[in-house]
């Protein structure tokens, strides 16, 4: 796994003794979630016979694939030093539009949600990049806007559009290749592309540079505004695509989906070691963050005696635990 660190604070710590500690700390920052993930997997596989069964693991992977799409876009947004609170609503809107569109053909089921969600991302990106408004507020408004649009399309949430029975659109999330469901394959593909874009393109370099220090990136002549706009468009498109996947998976446009999902995506990204201050992070880390959250859910569902409310308690505690650990270990590095 390769991480890119361009935070100026990390590069100019002079003491050699601190450098090795900093390397160790950076390792924990990046691999902390992975270590916990492995630990949870090992404990779970010894505790529950059915945990490592093919059906259960596939179930975890498919369930995680929707959140993974959101988390991928969120990773880029957070790397630029921003945040995207609209993805949960955009995800739900994409699902409803896809289910509605599937009644008019599979092409419409893809084009319509991607078009609308991309437009929402474009407006958000333009307002943030050109208007200079705080991403937190702009995407908060985007959350309200997308949810309002969704309610408008569904008679205030009363109507659920169904994907027609024979539609080829259903195949997107309900088929598999060599036993691997399409959503999982798509996530692997998208994350691979995401990692390539981050590490091999000038856009990716700009994302990290802007998150590291926006003024410096601008002075260096990087296309700051264009990069930001692109990032918010990508985040909205990925959220919309996640919606398309869930519409295909459930064969309907469920209106109540996605509430609070933006926060889960942020949690996954942070667990994965991407700093909310921007400028550093890993794509693979976010995927592991998503999987960790999903495995925790699965384990708690397996313990029959535990209430599902424990999910929230455990997920929240693990987030705080990992972040605290990261801070303590990186303290030498950052101060």
């Amino acid at each position, binding site marked *: 796994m390769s991480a890119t660190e361009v935070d100026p604070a990390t590069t100019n710590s002079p003491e050699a003794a601190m450098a090795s500690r900093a390397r160790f700390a950076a390792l924990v920052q990046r691999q902390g979630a992975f270590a916990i993930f492995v630990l949870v997997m090992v404990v779970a596989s010894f505790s529950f016979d059915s945990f490592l069964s093919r059906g259960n693991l596939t179930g975890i992977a498919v369930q995680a694939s929707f959140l993974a799409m959101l988390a991928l876009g969120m990773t880029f947004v957070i790397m630029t030093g921003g945040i995207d609170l609209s993805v949960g609503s955009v995800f739900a809107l994409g699902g409803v539009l896809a289910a509605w569109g599937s009644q008019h053909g599979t092409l419409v089921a893809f084009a319509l949600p991607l078009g609308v969600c991309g437009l929402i991302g474009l407006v958000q990106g333009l307002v943030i990049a050109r208007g200079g*408004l705080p991403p937190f*507020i702009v995407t908060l*408004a985007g*959350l*309200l806007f997308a949810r309002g649009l969704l*309610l408008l399309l569904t008679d205030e949430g009363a109507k659920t559009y169904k994907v027609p029975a024979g539609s080829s659109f259903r195949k997107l999330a309900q088929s598999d290749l060599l036993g691997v469901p399409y959503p999982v394959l798509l996530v692997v593909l998208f994350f691979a592309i995401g990692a390539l874009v981050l590490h091999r393109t000038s856009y990716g370099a700009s994302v990290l540079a802007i998150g590291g220090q926006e003024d410096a990136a601008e002075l260096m002549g990087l296309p700051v505004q264009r990069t930001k706009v692109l990032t918010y468009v990508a985040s909205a498109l990925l959220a919309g695509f996640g919606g398309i996947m869930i519409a295909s998976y459930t064969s309907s446009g469920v209106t109540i989906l996605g509430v609070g999902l933006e926060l889960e995506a942020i949690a996954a990204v942070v667990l994965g070691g991407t700093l*909310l201050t921007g400028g550093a992070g890993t794509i693979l880390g976010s995927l592991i963050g998503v999987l960790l959250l999903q495995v925790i859910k699965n384990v708690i569902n397996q313990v029959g005696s535990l*209430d599902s409310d424990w999910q929230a308690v455990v997920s929240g505690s693990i987030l705080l635990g990992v972040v605290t650990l990261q*801070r303590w270990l990186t303290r030498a590095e950052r101060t």
Partner: protein
Amino acid sequence: MTDTASPATTGASAPESSGRSRRVDSDWVRRNGVFVALVLLLLFNLLFTDNFATEGTLRLQLVQVAPVLIVALGMALVIGTEGIDLSVGAVMALAAALIPLYIGYGTGVSIGISLAAGVVVGLIAGVLVAHVGVQPIVATLGLMVAGRGVANLFGGQIKSIRDESFRELGTGSILGIPYVVAIAAVIAVVVGLVVRRTTYGRQLVAIGGNKLAAELAGLPVKRVLVTTYVVSGLLAAMAGILLAARSQASDPTKLGLLMELSAITAVVIGGTPLSGGQVRILGTVAGALLMQLITATLIFHNIQDSWAQIVQAVIVIAAVYVQLGRGTTRKSRKT
């Protein structure tokens, strides 16, 4: 006006004073836009809404805005330190969920325990932010997820609360003013005085303006930060208790949901920048009233929930755009 700017942000450097006259216009709008909007919307309702200027309608508006305002006041303090508190909604749910469990020991005892729960959550947030150095948004996000889970574990399903004095707190009134409104007003005055007149208030604003400078100046940065999150938790718990008292029930899955976003919106619309260093209490009060009045106006005129959300989204963006004006520093453009 209760408006305090840190020395670090206002009197920053002498050369800036030459451009001060040019900045007066945008500054005036930024400071007073929320009041102008509030007055205009009031006028609109007086003219075009039937039965608006009745005691019943106005009283209902004030009763509905009171819990949001109480949460927003705590949020204003947190935002003043350049922080954010996403846990307030969960704290409200937790506080409300605890009431039916302890109401048997007396109304005062149960309220005391609920408030203590708010203090504990605030203390955890404060310690994570101030001592561990976790970013406020992450620390309070973890607490939001975990807190809601804990509230559900305590409360489970909707529980009705049968207690005469607790009912009186929610529905009774003093000199014609509902207790709920009176409490909110008293808290607003106290918080306003604290920000303006106390050492703590001055220190809070200084820390939000420039944390490093405040630290170097020997201010008790950590203590002030912890206190601020504790106050926010305490006020959120208070709001949760009042909501439970009004409905004489606690519903931990729903109570306080999305309250963090309403509170942040009220604070930001009121002219407190997310970048910290300023706390505008009167603006926050007006911001909360404005958001309440917008919702009410849309309901009065039978506008669907979907359109209401879309309109709110546009208003939030417009309000923040106006506030940014010309005299903004780059700092306030970040998240």
